[in-house]
């Protein structure tokens, strides 16, 4: 892997009063290389969205610990006033709810143009031309004629296209997409995923895609980070995850999704419920639902063990069985 574009080391995010904090994300480390597309997968309460907002420093909670380095610079060290210059220009973001993520009182043209204006496009004509180009790029038919349209005149899929146009207008080096297709229908989801791949190809940026759906991640991403209850439990390239998952959670997740390759069997089910965010303070967060759990799992959170050149997972049991060694310290 070449130089990292984004590197999170031991990031911990807390909400609530400082005296009784709720840790929603704990000790999360992973990185995104230049031009790479990485998926962050997890269920509700896994902390995946909070992690993505923490990178942009757009969360209500506190990053209590850790470093978030972008091109070698720790974003957490920067004064708050330095962040707007980075947001939208270096790191851009799109969100889950296309219906509410656009300002209802501003035309879509103005909203895309605003992203440009905020990052140095002061010439009006150039800005307008670029806005049309971007809307064209994301497949808004008759882009020039739609500049003056308002969001309510667009469907959900179209709004998500506008969001993408706005996000990539300044050619950011990293696009964070937080469940960008969850609110959309299947056929529209296919369109938007296709568009994200196209835009990435044309603009050469890195993508961090957050989703609960491994299928979506498999479609877009080269590498996957699996989160559970605020922690990273496994990380690998996509092919390895799909064929040789090591963490019992990843294994169970893959086996419980209905799909072609195991249609005949009864669906595998992970027992129990997803723990609410911040409810597990000690040991492996998956142990209560894990068939392999041993007493040690309740006492100590397993570190990441290396299972191959591109794969590591946090499980005492599989690591011992496969003789995996502890991955190098995250720094």
């Amino acid at each position: 892997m070449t130089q990292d574009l984004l590197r999170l080391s031991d990031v911990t995010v807390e909400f609530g009063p400082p005296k009784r904090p709720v840790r929603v994300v704990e000790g999360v480390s992973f990185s995104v290389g230049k031009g790479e597309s990485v998926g962050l997968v997890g269920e509700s309460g896994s902390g995946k969205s909070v992690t993505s907002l923490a990178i942009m420093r757009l969360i209500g909670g506190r990053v209590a610990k850790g470093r978030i380095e972008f091109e070698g610079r720790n974003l957490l060290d920067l004064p708050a006033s330095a962040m707007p210059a980075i947001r939208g220009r270096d790191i851009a973001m799109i969100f889950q709810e296309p219906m509410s993520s656009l300002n209802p009182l501003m035309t879509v043209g103005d909203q895309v143009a605003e992203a440009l204006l905020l990052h140095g496009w002061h010439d009006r004509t150039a800005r307008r031309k670029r806005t049309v180009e971007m809307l064209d790029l994301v497949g808004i038919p008759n882009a020039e004629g739609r500049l003056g349209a308002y969001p309510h005149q667009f469907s959900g899929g179209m709004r998500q296209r506008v969001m993408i146009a706005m996000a990539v207008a300044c050619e950011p080096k990293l696009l964070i997409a937080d469940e960008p297709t969850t609110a959309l229908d299947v056929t529209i989801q296919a369109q938007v995923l296709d568009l994200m791949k196209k835009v990435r190809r044309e603009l050469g940026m890195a993508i961090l895609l957050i989703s609960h759906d491994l299928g979506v991640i498999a479609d877009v991403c080269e590498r996957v980070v699996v989160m559970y209850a605020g922690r990273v439990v496994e990380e690998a390239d996509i092919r390895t995850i799909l064929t040789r998952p090591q963490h019992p959670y990843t294994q169970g997740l893959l086996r419980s999704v209905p799909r072609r390759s195991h249609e005949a069997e009864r669906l595998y089910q992970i027992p129990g419920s997803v723990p609410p965010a911040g409810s597990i303070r000690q040991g492996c967060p998956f142990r209560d639902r894990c068939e392999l759990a041993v007493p040690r799992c309740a006492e100590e959170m397993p570190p990441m063990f290396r299972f191959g050149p591109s794969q590591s997972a946090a499980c005492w049991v599989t690591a011992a069985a496969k003789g995996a060694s502890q991955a190098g310290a995250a720094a």
Partner: protein
Amino acid sequence: MSASINPALQPLASQPSVFATLRRVIFDRPATIFALVVVILFVLVAALAPLIAPYDPLAQSILDVNKPPSAAHPVGTDQFGRDVLSRLVYGSRNSLILGFVSPVLAAILGTFLGVVAGYFGGFVDRIVSRIIDLLLAFPELLLAILIAAVLGGGFWNVVAVLTVAFTPGFARVARASTLAVKQEPYIEAAVAVGLRTPMIILRHVVPNIAAPIVVLTTLWIASAIRLEASLSFLGIGTQPPNPSWGNIIRDGLNNLFGSPWPIIGAGALITLVVLAFNLLGDAVRDALDPEASR
């Protein structure tokens, strides 16, 4: 089969009861304790007026006209030599009774109208909500003034006026809440298991719209007290010589050069009591209807 599932129950951080929340909301805020004290004092004074008032509120005395505050008359006397403190003490009875009766009557009437209109929809709803909308276009005070202009003053007329002025507000809230609740799948679930409509309304609709109605009732006690004062001030509420905080100010205004004390005293009391009920209403709202707060 169930043995293999073992869905461990994780009780979400133990859900506090409504009363526990109410207690917390009341006693964690100094302002609410203050409000509670004021309200209790107010109720006690009104209930025990004959014991507390030093004089007969109607007794005139030509010798004691327009006296400033003194030991004998802590808030002075008015232009007829009546003791202002005694008048204020007796005036609280009007505020208390009207303050409670009208909002409660309006809540019952308005909830009934709103639930019926919201649940059944159609023609009934169209008529009811049209009239509600129209009446709501009028501020309560103006509506009360206009109705009182027709009916005239007096205790029961004021009750009627305030009830009519408040009913549309309750009806709107009840209707909107009913419409929202009616969209909830659990209502459809009740239909799907074959429950009769009256039972659906009693079991599944009313308990779930009760919170905003109760909150509104508490908040409107404050409005009722202020409105009664306004009407009495305008001469279309409680009729002299019966004392009411509003008509004490009215009398005071006619005697501006005589003594400002009746105005100052009565106005301060209205402000204090209304403030206290508003604070209490906010507390009840925070306890019962957290989503409506802010």
